[in-house]
C-alpha cells in the first residue's frame, strides 16, 4: 500500500530522518512506524484540527498582514542524547563567552586593548549603550535568556548561524508545539522517552529571581510587554502565566525616588526584576527614544542605581551584531581558553578591505546579510538572486561595508514535512533557548525548529512564511520532573491611568548659549 513517505526524494542536503531513501535513522524508527499507516486524509484532518486549536488559543503569527494559526508540522524533529549533549555544551559555551564579552566591553575593554576585536566594532555600534556604564549586574548576568540559532550543514555538523541575546522570542511555540503534539498524537510519545519542555517557566523564574538587586529578600518579578498589538504578546502572556507573575505594560509601572513600582488595586508595590520584552530604544524616554510611550520613564535610572534589574540587560545588542558573530570563536578561545564546541558558518567581513574585495568578487556565490537584520529580512542568497538584486547588494555593501557580513551558503538539513498529502524534504534550523542564572547556563531540551515551507527555500523565519516542528530530545534514562511552581496570590493590576486631558509626554532640554 502506498504511504505518505513513498516517493520521498532526498534533497541535496543532510536529511534528518533518512540516511538514504527507505533507510530511516534509528531515532526516527518509532515515529516512522507510527506515521506510516496513517492515511493522508487522516493526517490532513489532524493538521487542520491542530490549526483550529492554535487559532482558538490565540497561538498565531502575522504573515503578509494577516493573523494565521501557528504552522506546526506533524513530523517531529528528533535529537538523540549524543546530539543534544553537543548542542547543550556548544550553546552554553557560546553564552558564557558572550557574557564575558559584554562584561569586558562595558568594563575594562581588554579584548579591544589586546587587539582580539577592533575598537570600531564597539564604538561604531548603535547598540553600544553607554548609559549602562557602571552597572554591576547581580550574579554578573546580562544574558538571562539567549536564543542561539543553529543549522546542520551538508555533512550533518551543527553550526551556529546567529546569536540572539537581546529579546529572543519563540519559546512559547516550543511549549505550545509540545502541547499540541501530545494531544493530537499521544501514541507517538509512547515509544520513546522525550525530555519535557514544561520546566521552562520554573527555570526562568528562578533565574530572574536570582538576578534581583542584592539584598532583596523576596523579589517581585514582572513581565513587561509592549502590549496586545505586539506580535509576541501571546508569548509574553504565556510566560507571565507559567511563572505566576504579573504581565504589565509601561503605564502599569512608575518610578518614584529612583525605584520602580507597580500600580495595583491595593496601591503601589515595589518591583525588583523586569523581564522586559521591549527593545532598548523604547524602554525609557528619558534615556532613549523620547517619543516612546510604551516604556517607563525613569526605569533606566533605577537600573543604573541598582534598584531594579532589567532582563535581558540593556546594551546586549553589541554581542549579537552579526559582525561580532564572526569573532565569537576567537572570543571563546580568548575568554574561556576553550575550543569552540560548535563552529560558525564560514563568514567574510566586508568591513576589512581585503575581505570586501573577495565578497564583491564572489557575491553571486555568497549569502549577504545585514548585520542588524532580524526575521530573515534583507538577506540576499547569491546563487538564487537575479542580476539586479546582486548589483543592488554590491552597491549597498560598498556604501556601508560595516553593515553586512557574507557567508558560504549552507544547504540546511531537511526534514520530511507534510506538503499537500505527501511528505517532502524541507529545510530546517533550530533555536535552542538558554537560561543563565549566574551559576549555570541551562538549555531547554528541545528548542524551536523552524521549517521553510516552500520547496528549496532556505529562509525559515515565520515572518517569511516558515513553519515549525516539535523538537524532541531523547533521554536515555528517566527524565527529571520539574517541581511545580505555585502561582501565589497576585494583586490585580489597576486600570490604566491616563494623564489629565490633553497632556502628553514632553521633552525638556536647555540649549547652551
Amino acid at each position, binding site marked *: 500500500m502506498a504511504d505518505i513517505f513513498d516517493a520521498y526524494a532526498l534533497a541535496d542536503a543532510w536529511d534528518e530522518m533518512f540516511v538514504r531513501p527507505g533507510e530511516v535513522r534509528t531515532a526516527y524508527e518509532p515515529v516512522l512506524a507510527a506515521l506510516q499507516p496513517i492515511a493522508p486524509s487522516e493526517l490532513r484532518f489532524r493538521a487542520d484540527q491542530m490549526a483550529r486549536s492554535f487559532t482558538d488559543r490565540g497561538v498565531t503569527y502575522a504573515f503578509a498582514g494577516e493573523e494565521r494559526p501557528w504552522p506546526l508540522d506533524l513530523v517531529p524533529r528528533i535529537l538523540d542524547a549524543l546530539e543534544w549533549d553537543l548542542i547543550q555544551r556548544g550553546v552554553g559555551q557560546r553564552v558564557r563567552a558572550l557574557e564575558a564579552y559584554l562584561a569586558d566591553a562595558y568594563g575594562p*575593554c581588554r579584548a*579591544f586593548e589586546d*587587539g582580539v576585536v577592533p*575598537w*570600531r566594532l564597539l*564604538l*561604531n555600534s548603535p547598540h553600544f549603550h*553607554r*548609559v549602562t*556604564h*557602571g552597572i554591576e549586574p547581580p550574579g554578573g548576568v546580562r544574558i538571562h535568556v539567549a536564543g542561539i540559532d543553529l543549522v546542520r550543514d551538508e555533512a550533518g555538523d551543527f553550526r551556529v548561524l546567529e546569536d540572539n541575546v537581546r529579546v529572543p522570542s519563540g519559546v512559547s511555540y516550543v511549549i505550545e508545539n509540545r502541547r499540541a503534539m501530545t494531544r493530537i498524537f499521544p501514541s507517538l510519545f509512547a515509544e520513546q522517552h522525550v525530555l519535557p519542555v514544561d520546566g521552562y517557566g520554573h527555570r526562568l523564574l528562578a533565574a530572574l529571581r536570582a538576578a534581583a538587586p542584592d539584598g532583596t529578600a523576596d523579589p517581585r518579578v514582572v513581565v513587561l510587554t509592549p502590549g496586545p498589538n505586539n506580535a509576541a504578546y501571546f508569548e509574553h502572556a504565556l510566560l507571565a502565566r507559567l511563572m505566576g507573575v504579573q504581565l504589565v505594560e509601561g503605564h502599569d509601572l*512608575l*518610578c*518614584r*525616588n*529612583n525605584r520602580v513600582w507597580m500600580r495595583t488595586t491595593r496601591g503601589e508595590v515595589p518591583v525588583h526584576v523586569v523581564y522586559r520584552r521591549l527593545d532598548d530604544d523604547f524602554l525609557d*524616554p*528619558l534615556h532613549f527614544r*523620547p517619543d516612546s510611550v510604551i516604556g517607563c*520613564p*525613569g526605569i533606566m*535610572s533605577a537600573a*543604573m*542605581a541598582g534598584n531594579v534589574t532589567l532582563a535581558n540587560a540593556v546594551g546586549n545588542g553589541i554581542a549579537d551584531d552579526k559582525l561580532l558573530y564572526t569573532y565569537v570563536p576567537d572570543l571563546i578561545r580568548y575568554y574561556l581558553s576553550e575550543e569552540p564546541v560548535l563552529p560558525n558558518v564560514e563568514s567574510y567581513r566586508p568591513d576589512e578591505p581585503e575581505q570586501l574585495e573577495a565578497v564583491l568578487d564572489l557575491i553571486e556565490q555568497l549569502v549577504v546579510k545585514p548585520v542588524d537584520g532580524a526575521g530573515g529580512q534583507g538577506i540576499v542568497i547569491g546563487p538564487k538572486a537575479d542580476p539586479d538584486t546582486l548589483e543592488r547588494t554590491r552597491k549597498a555593501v560598498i556604501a556601508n561595508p560595516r553593515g553586512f557580513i557574507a557567508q558560504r551558503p549552507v544547504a540546511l538539513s531537511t526534514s520530511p514535512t507534510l506538503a499537500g498529502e505527501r511528505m517532502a524534504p524541507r529545510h530546517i534550523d533550530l533555536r535552542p533557548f538558554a537560561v543563565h542564572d549566574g551559576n549555570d547556563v541551562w538549555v531547554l531540551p528541545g528548542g524551536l525548529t523552524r521549517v521553510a515551507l516552500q520547496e528549496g527555500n532556505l529562509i525559515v523565519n515565520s515572518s517569511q512564511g516558515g513553519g515549525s516542528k516539535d523538537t524532541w530530545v531523547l533521554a536515555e534514562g528517566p527524565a527529571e520532573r520539574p517541581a511545580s511552581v505555585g502561582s501565589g496570590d497576585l494583586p490585580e493590576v489597576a486600570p490604566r491611568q491616563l*494623564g*489629565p486631558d*490633553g*497632556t*502628553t*509626554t*514632553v*521633552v*525638556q*532640554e*536647555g*540649549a*547652551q*548659549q
Partner: protein
Amino acid sequence: MVTDKGIRRLRIRHETRVSYAQAAVSSHNEVRMTPLTLPGQTTLDGRVTVGPAAATWSYWDYWGTQVTGFDLMDPHSDLTITASSLVETAPPGPLPGPPGWAEVAERTARSRLLEFAIPTARTTVPAELIAHAREVTAGLDPHETAVAVSSLVADRVSYLPGTTGVNTSAAEAWEQGTGVCQDIAHVTIALLRGLGLPSRYVSGYLHPEKEAELHRPVAGQSHAWIEYWAGDWCGYDPTNRTRADESHVVVGRGRDYDDVPPHKGVYRGVAGGPPEVTVEFTRVA
C-alpha cells in the same frame, strides 16, 4: 587676592526655571551642571538643588560627568533647578608638541580615541565641506589645523542667539550661517573629525570678564567649546577664537551636545514658555 600662579576662584550659580501651562506630573530629570576636577581645575564645592523639593541622586556617567537625577511625580506648576559651585581654575599649560598626522591616525584606529573620530548624527557635514576644510588646512599640523578650522567655522557661522534650537545639527548651522556656541562647536568638531583629528564637545561655563573685580557678581552664560587630540587633549573655543583658559570651567565632555546636556527631562503636562536661565559668576579669589 589673586595668587601668583594666576589661579582664580569662581563661584557659579546656574538657575533654570521652567513654567508649565498646565501642571506637570511624572517628571524625570537629569542635570549635568557640576564642574569636574581636572588638572588645572579643582571643584571645591558643587551642589544641585531642586524646587519643588525632591530627593536627588548622583552618579558619574560613561563620559566622566557628574550627573544629578531626580523625579517629581506629583503635580507642579513650575520647576527650578539651581546648580551652585565653587571652582579654582589655572591658566592652561603649554601645548604638547604636535604629533604627525600618521601618528594621530595610528593612535585613533587603535584606541578609544576612535570614539571621537566617528561622526555622530549631529556632527555629520557634507563631504564637499570636509574637502574644503582639507584645502584650507593643507600642510598644517594638528594645532594649526584646529585653529584654522575654528576660524573657518566662526567666519561662516555668526553668533546669533535664537536662530537655532537644541536639536540643530552641524550641517544645518553651516547652511544657515548663524548659530550659538553649541552650533559652532558642532561644526568645528564635524570638520576636525572629517580631517582625521579626534575632537570632542565640551559643556561648561565661561566667565565673561577676564579681569573681573573680586566679589562682584556678573551675569554670564553656560558655554560650549571643543577639545582636539594632539598627543593630549587641547581645549579651543571656536566661538571666541581662543584657547580654553582659566575663564573656561569644564562640566562635561562627549561626542556632541547629546552626551552632555545641562538639563534633560521628560514629564507629562503642557509646556509653558522657554526655560528662563541665569548664570551668575562671582570671582572670590
